């Protein structure tokens, strides 16, 4: 179970293979949201709650997880799942709604080092959300919009709130929306890449978290880093998958 600030994700693992996957909004009651997602994931796999050997929780609200047997650090989960999905992965970038982090891992998926951008929305998904609102564009359309631009508009990228004011005046000056959208992703890519440089960039680089699904951000990040990041099929489930993989090792160590 990965209990984030905006969503919860659940992955059910049976004999090392994913058999169920579900998500929901954290809302006011992340515990309940996680219970529902667990139920849904188990239903997909034709399993009951009592069939589960070990529940592991991760994410910023992991202390509110139901059924929990143990917890896993978010960086540990990223490293484990990143290497499971892409065996050559040595750097995992996780960009979620409110936090971005980069994790250095060894070939076994054990976290070696990490850096986090926290307590500032400018390097996280919240930035795209706020700017989409200011641009009056749907969040899921921001990426394709940005890809149409040849250049980026100048905006204050150090702060979501200042950026929002800039976007409002740019719209008023009738600047092109694609160029504004691209500026948003370029700004985020700048922050994420600055964070990665503190860690050192070791290929392969795997990009996970909800923001990895945004083609606008991926294009800006690839351009900025000068490489092509690997994106797994379900990037938003990587935290939950990592927790499930670690849960499996804990079952072996201490059978229920």
């Amino acid at each position, binding site marked *: 179970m990965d209990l984030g*600030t905006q969503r919860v994700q659940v992955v059910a693992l049976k004999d090392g293979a994913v058999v169920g996957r579900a998500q929901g909004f954290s809302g*006011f*009651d992340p515990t309940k949201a996680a219970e529902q997602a667990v139920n849904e994931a188990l239903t997909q796999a034709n399993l009951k709650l009592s069939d589960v050997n070990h529940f592991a929780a991760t994410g910023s609200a992991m202390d*509110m997880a139901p059924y929990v047997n143990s917890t896993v650090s978010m960086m540990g989960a990223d490293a484990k799942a990143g290497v499971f999905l892409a065996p050559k992965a040595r750097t995992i970038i996780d960009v979620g709604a*409110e936090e971005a982090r980069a994790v250095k891992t060894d070939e076994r998926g054990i976290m070696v080092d990490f850096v986090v951008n926290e*307590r*500032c*929305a400018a390097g996280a998904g*919240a*930035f795209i959300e*706020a700017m989409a609102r200011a641009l009056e564009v749907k969040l899921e359309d921001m990426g394709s919009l940005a890809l149409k631009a040849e250049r980026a508009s100048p905006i204050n990228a*150090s*702060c*979501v*709130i*200042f950026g929002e*004011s800039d976007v*409002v*005046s740019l*719209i*008023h000056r009738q600047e092109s929306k694609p160029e504004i959208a691209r500026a948003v992703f370029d700004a985020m890519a700048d922050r994420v890449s600055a964070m990665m440089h503190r860690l050192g960039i070791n290929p392969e680089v795997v990009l996970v978290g909800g923001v990895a699904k945004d083609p606008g951000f991926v294009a800006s990040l690839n351009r900025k880093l000068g490489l092509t990041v690997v994106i797994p099929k379900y990037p938003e489930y990587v935290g939950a998958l990592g927790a499930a993989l670690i849960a499996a090792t804990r079952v072996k160590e201490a059978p229920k």
Partner: protein
Amino acid sequence: MSGVKDEFWRWQEYHRIMPNIKWSSKDIITAGVDVGSVGSKAAIMVNGEAYAWGITRTGSNSPESAKKALDFALKDTGLSVGDLKFIVGTGYGRVNVPMANKAITEIACHAKGANYLWGPSVKTVLDVGGQDIKAIKIDETGRVVSFLMNDKCAAGTGRGMEVFADLLQIPIEDIGDISLKVEKEPDPVSCTCVAFAKTEAMGLLRKGWSKEKVLAAYTRAMAVRMANLINRVGLEKELVITGGQSKNIGIVSRIEVILGVKTLPSPKWRDGGLDPMVAGALGAASFGKALYEKAQKA
């Protein structure tokens, strides 16, 4: 859209004419227009004395907001824009005040305005607006000596308070009083990022905190940020607070506790006094008078 009564973040837009001041065409009548990120303020001065002002919310169009604020200030005065000898634009949108004869930074205008409102004893001005925190050191004539501002991050500014007012469903003008209704001051929240204000508040409410305690913790964190800025610029008495948050008693009293000094009391606009939220516009109008006189002599 929800009705006006449900918009807890909405602060009062109003205009005021000082009854003790009269004007004639011989007088030097000047205006200052302060287009802020959240509020637009305009003030009219007659021979350098505050005569009328108006406060409105800034829209997406700075020139329109400037015009709206100035028209609001002129309302019922019998004056029109043509009667104004000199107009100074200031604030975040100062370059977009089309009717202005000159633009002056809001730092200089707040310094000048604070000197006008409180007199020569003011040496440190804290201006807290919608997205800005500025700590300004001034001399006894109201001139800027040095200043510091939050140019990279909007954490701890008035916008965050609007988010809290909405989420907690408390009118923004009551927030200060309510934040003081705690038996023991809680630790400040660790994050005052405006973009995260909502999740921060929800997290605390989920933990079972009362609205009062949540507000106290957030207001405390904002006050700590402001006090740090004042300490960095160097606190020198007297200290005054201008801008919208000068009306937030929760902020003002906490800054006083943290710094260990009293601020000079703010005039009370509800009781017919001046309004520290208009300090920038008043400073701008005051510069307008000096600039007009200089031009006449030349």
